[in-house]
């Protein structure tokens, strides 16, 4: 497969995900402008970060008036999974020139990772140039869609009168992200510990209770995974 052919193959697989990215970008645009960011800040946020869950987390914690360091640490914790993506793609893409690796890193959204890793594990002997082409093909429509949808949402958000209560739309948007992630018992236990921990430690200052709850929840998820492996029930 030449890089050109791989690019078109990736594009074909990535294109339908536009339908997933667009509404989510619009939700971020509405939520961010309702929270008080202006249109330029909202758009720059989406262009510079391209990670919806982390962006929403940061906006939500700023609304709660959390200290800036806590806002950054918590939102980056949501993005820790990106390091896992990076580690898992490194054996496939590590031989590409550094500027390509940097550009792919900037563009590494959940969907691009999922599409790429699925293809590369089925066809590990693709030349590295073709793998790079496939990755760029998969994201080439998604990222501009993310920017434009954010802009559309931001314009819509500034048009909605601030008196209209859209507050509870934020928990709904987050919970909609979580449902599909609850694939295993370990994920469910982690989510449960996170909720209980956050409520128990709600009194801890500087929103640090959430960090405590998250660390306990990660440990709980990993322990349940180990337990399931030992019982031969982990797939």
């Amino acid at each position, binding site marked *: 497969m030449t890089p050109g052919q791989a690019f078109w193959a990736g594009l074909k697989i990535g294109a339908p995900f536009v339908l997933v990215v667009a509404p989510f970008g619009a939700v971020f645009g509405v939520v961010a402008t309702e929270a008080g960011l202006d249109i330029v800040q909202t758009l720059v946020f989406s262009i510079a970060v391209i990670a919806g869950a982390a962006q929403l987390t940061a906006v939500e914690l*700023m609304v709660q008036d959390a200290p800036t360091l806590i806002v950054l640490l918590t939102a980056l914790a949501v993005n820790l999974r990106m390091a896992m993506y990076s580690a898992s793609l490194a054996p496939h893409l590590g031989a590409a020139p550094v500027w390509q690796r940097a550009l792919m890193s900037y563009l590494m959204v959940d969907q691009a990772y999922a599409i790429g890793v699925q293809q590369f594990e089925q066809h590990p002997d693709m030349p590295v140039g073709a793998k790079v082409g496939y990755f760029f093909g998969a994201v080439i429509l998604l990222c501009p869609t993310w920017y434009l949808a954010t802009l559309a949402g931001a314009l819509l958000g500034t048009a909605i009168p601030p008196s209209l209560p859209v507050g509870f739309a934020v928990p709904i948007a987050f919970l*909609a992200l979580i449902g599909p992630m609850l694939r295993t018992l370990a994920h469910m236990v982690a989510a449960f510990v996170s*909720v209980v921990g956050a409520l128990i430690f709600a009194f801890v200052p500087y929103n640090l209770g959430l960090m405590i709850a998250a660390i306990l929840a990660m440990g709980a998820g990993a322990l349940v995974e180990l337990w399931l492996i030992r019982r031969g029930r982990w797939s």
Partner: protein
Amino acid sequence: MIQQSQGTIWLVIAGLAIGSFLLRFSFLGLIGKRQLPGWALRLLRYTPVAVIPGLMAPQIFLPADGSTLPDPIKLAAAAITVAVGVWSRNVIAAMAAGVSALAVLIWLFQS
């Protein structure tokens, strides 16, 4: 509403942009082909489900100002959102279900 200064908002955007890029570039760019140890991968797998439910829990389960019980409408809309998400594995379907449930319940019980 966000009370922080414009400078703080830009600081958060810049910090999150740089931090997210470094997380994405970490292995691909700097560390190369070495793999993360198994225990680290195992913990990282649970970060989104460990952070996001806890972030939302107070708004869903704690009573609003001036009431003693959690809001049953919010609880029901939250439960429907999660249930549709688990069942359909589709973020957008779950969002649509949750917003519709919220709108219908508010219309039924608060008007």
